[in-house]
């Protein structure tokens, strides 16, 4: 670990000031500290934002939900409003990491977490994300867990978050504050595909701070859920995952929100699947037909070809689980 200075701030202005001078924000630290130990991250200054007032979960005027950036994963998952209104969020959180990590890690930190690509985390390997221009060791290396969607020549790493997949599906908004004031970023624009600049992962300006993630209101009832497919039963990142939310009225699907995880360089929204569902009546055949489009545009690598088929089946399964088999 490289030496660093550590400062604790007590209000947002102080945090922004430190952030503007190049400080890195730290909350739960469950990702950043690991990466510092591996010398992947070498911040000179850490700014502890744990004391900032960003902890609440509140219902918005429009009936959505606003989750403070410093709300712990465990708190968000257990929150009554989250559980009843957006089960997909609770489930995604509870299938993440371990109980210990969920007690430390925050919602803001969760969507900021960096890829689990083992070449990214090994400073002796080539990685354009860690060291632009050094090449991508994963592309022709061991890439079983890597992305099949949204990849570029420069990078094939997945975004590891589960709850970000739910946020992508539900078209959340990320609220940030910076030296020039507050702004809101649609979730689809918040996490960046690698393109030729994989080192740039979020649409944040220098010193900007996430304050909350807002989930929009949906017509009721909204049935939702998260399915995570992985080698072992717990404590592992997704091989594939699916976040699904459906609003069915009069026997017809009126709203369909579907996104996939474990397969994309960012949480992967599936508009083609959604389009197949809207206006249709739930049926096993519909789920299968819609899920056929889940891997549209996939570019598999040597060891992750199985993800193409697995993704389709994962989405099909989760459509059935959420939408029922009628």
């Amino acid at each position, binding site marked *: *670990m490289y030496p660093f200075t550590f400062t604790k701030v007590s209000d947002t202005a102080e945090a922004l000031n430190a952030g503007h001078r190049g400080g890195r924000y730290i909350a739960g630290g469950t990702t950043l500290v690991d990466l510092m130990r591996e010398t992947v991250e070498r911040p000179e200054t850490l700014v502890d934002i744990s004391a900032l007032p960003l902890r609440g979960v509140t219902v918005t005027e429009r009936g959505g939900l606003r989750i403070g950036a410093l709300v712990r994963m465990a708190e968000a998952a257990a929150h009554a409003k989250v559980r009843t209104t957006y089960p997909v969020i609770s489930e995604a959180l509870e299938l993440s990491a371990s109980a210990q990590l969920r007690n430390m890690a925050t919602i803001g930190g969760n969507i900021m977490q960096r890829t689990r690509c083992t070449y990214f985390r090994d400073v*002796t390997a080539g990685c354009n994300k860690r060291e632009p221009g050094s090449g991508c060791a994963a592309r022709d290396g061991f890439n079983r867990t890597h992305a099949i969607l949204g990849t570029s020549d420069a990078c094939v790493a997945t975004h590891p978050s589960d709850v970000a997949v739910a946020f992508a599906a539900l078209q959340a908004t990320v609220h940030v504050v910076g030296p020039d004031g507050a702004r809101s970023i649609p979730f689809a624009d918040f996490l960046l595909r690698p393109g030729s600049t994989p080192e740039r992962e979020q649409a944040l300006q220098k010193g900007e701070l996430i304050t909350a993630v807002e989930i929009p209101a949906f017509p009721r009832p909204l049935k939702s859920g998260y399915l995570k497919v992985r080698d072992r039963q717990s404590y*592992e990142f997704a091989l594939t995952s699916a976040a699904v939310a459906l609003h069915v009225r009069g026997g017809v699907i009126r709203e369909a929100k579907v996104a996939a995880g474990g397969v994309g360089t960012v949480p992967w929204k599936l508009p083609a699947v959604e389009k197949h569902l809207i206006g249709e009546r739930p049926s096993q055949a519909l789920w299968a037909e819609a899920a056929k489009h889940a891997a549209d545009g996939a570019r598999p690598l040597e060891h992750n070809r199985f993800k193409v088929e697995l993704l389709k*089946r994962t989405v099909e399964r989760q459509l059935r689980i959420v939408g029922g088999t009628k």
Partner: protein
Amino acid sequence: MSPQPQAAVGAPLTRVDGRLKVTGKATYAAEHDIEGVVHAVIVDSTIGRGRITGIDTRAALAQPGVIKVISHLNAPRLVYRGNPESIDPPGNKQLRIFQDDKVLFHGQPVAVVVATTLETAQHAASLVKVRYDATKSSTDMASAPAGEPVNYARGDADKAFASAAVRLDVTYQQPRAHHNAMEPHATIARWDGDKLTLWDKTQWPVGTQKDVAAQFGIPNDSVRIIAPFVGGGFGSAIRAWPHIATAAIAARETGRPVKLVLSRKQMYFGTGYRPAYEYRVRLGSDRRGRVSAMVQHLKSETSTYENFTEGVLHAGQMVYNAPNVRQDYRTVPLDVNTPVWMRGPGFATAAFAVESAMDELAHKLGIDPIELRLRNEPEEDPSNGLPFSTRRLRECLATGAREFGWSRRNPKPRSTRDGDWLIGTGMAIGIMDVPRMPAQARVRLDADGTALVEAATSDMGPGTYTSQAQVAADALGLTMRNVTFRLGDSTMPPTPPHGGSMTMAMVGSAVQDGCDTVRKQAIKLAVEDERSPLYGADAGNVVVRGGRLHVKDNPARGETYGQLLTRNNRTHLEVLGSYTPGETRFSMYSYSVTFAEVAVDARLGLVRVRRMLGVYDAGRIISPKLADSQALGGQVGGIGAALLEHTVTDHRDGRIVNADLANYMVPVNADIPDLRAIFLDGGDDRKADPIGVKGLGEVVHIGVAPAIANAVFHATGRRVRELPITVEALL
């Protein structure tokens, strides 16, 4: 047979050191508080093969607190005189630390940084710049040439196979696997003049002592190893790996005690592993399932500097009574570090191939897998004609079938469904040989009626502290509370390596010998002492219970050890007990049968174990509660081997890609279902050793992976011949 009542042996006791462990007071290797200790961190090579052309240590040395950076450029030349008692692969060709500029594998130690704090040493190690002249490394067993084979043959297996009515020809692949014990490998080294003390994680204190003495060219008794607790080993701590000498070099060069702890990542190349295997099996049988031919070709990986082999041939020779068997076993030298034994070494590997093949044959013949085994069960060891000391496989099979509910099984694959899940059951046999080596134990009975028993063995988790005390307590006629067993110090009486399932049997036999002798000395003292109530009694008719000697049929006539010794002005009695194996005329193995039920998601390919049962013929069970834990641990390891564990090498440069516990999968609690262990009653095997123990630690793991793989076949109808069985094989 001891005339003593068995009070402690066979009792399901809780481990005596449990409280120390759960309260954090058990001192593991890195936890010894050594005054003035400084910290060492190894710099690993980042190429797979080549030469070091330069090392720039300026940035590292500029860090405040850095004491020294040691590499081949400034390290002392070590002697490496060779240690004839070593269990290393033969030839004294172990990796010689910092002795030249050669890099033999990715991750090889190329320098070590010593600093006043761990953090400084870690940071400075990352600042050491090593320049290399790299050449292409060879790490892929599939494409590299193999060496000369070891061969075995009986009958004419090729001819018998060619003429067999039913033939099977299949090849199984098993990956490299790492032990991944909880405790990292760690050493604290301190020189006092020319004497070296090492607080080390080791499964063999006297082995490490002699290996290190040989490396430094100093007398054995100039090296002392202290290792009272070992946080899991599974075989990885049975050799003196290079980091131990590294710590000793660093301590000598800096004149300070040095602590060196390997990182989790470094354990993937700084210590050994279970080697990858390719195992081809050809089985020939008649239509009734009588196996006539077994032709087997084995290939495993090793390093370029040591030829590691293990007991992978026994199972294919002696589990089944095939008249014609041929085996050849080749190793493939690669630019990797040397493999080492890992739980059930060789035997677990062979079980996956042989037991999967037998399951395939059973399916092909339409014969129940258990029935097929029974039809090929030998009466004597078919590999050497020796009678078995004990072999109760038929009982294991019958008991297991009954308790598991085998008769309810629909033999047709893919015939049972539970929602999205396909359900299947499978079984497999495991065997492990009973190696025998000499052991000693010192027994001291004090006049206060307590006893101290010592042996230089180890306790990596099975509960040696507890089970050896149980043997001693009964032989001495003391309660457990009054017996202390100590281990983990090379100054204590020597024992075999704490591995190969030997400790209970070998050390236990030495402990019993010493305790029997002490007890008999006390009895002799009493019956010859006119002041003793036992004066004149028949020594053979005196027993000891709760520290009190008395005539067997007349408990009123007797006295305590304390009374006897005090009156005779004896502070204590002390004896060196020993066990020396003689020639044997028996074939000696432990046996297991594992049954597994799995669920496989028909669409998503996920495999989840639902329940398992192991039935064991392991000889006498000294400590049933510990044995149960041992068995469940072995089953858990088998779930890992079957479904998760796989060390991945990037063949472009030889780096291990998944060198951490986030990417090297082991089972977590959620993967562990209902596990059950049954030990056959009345298991004493006195032909094996005086206490009738055959050994347990390995056989509980051997055969688990093929039982699961066979269950996956039964669930899905799909045969997966490569471990681990993951989603992609079942989509």
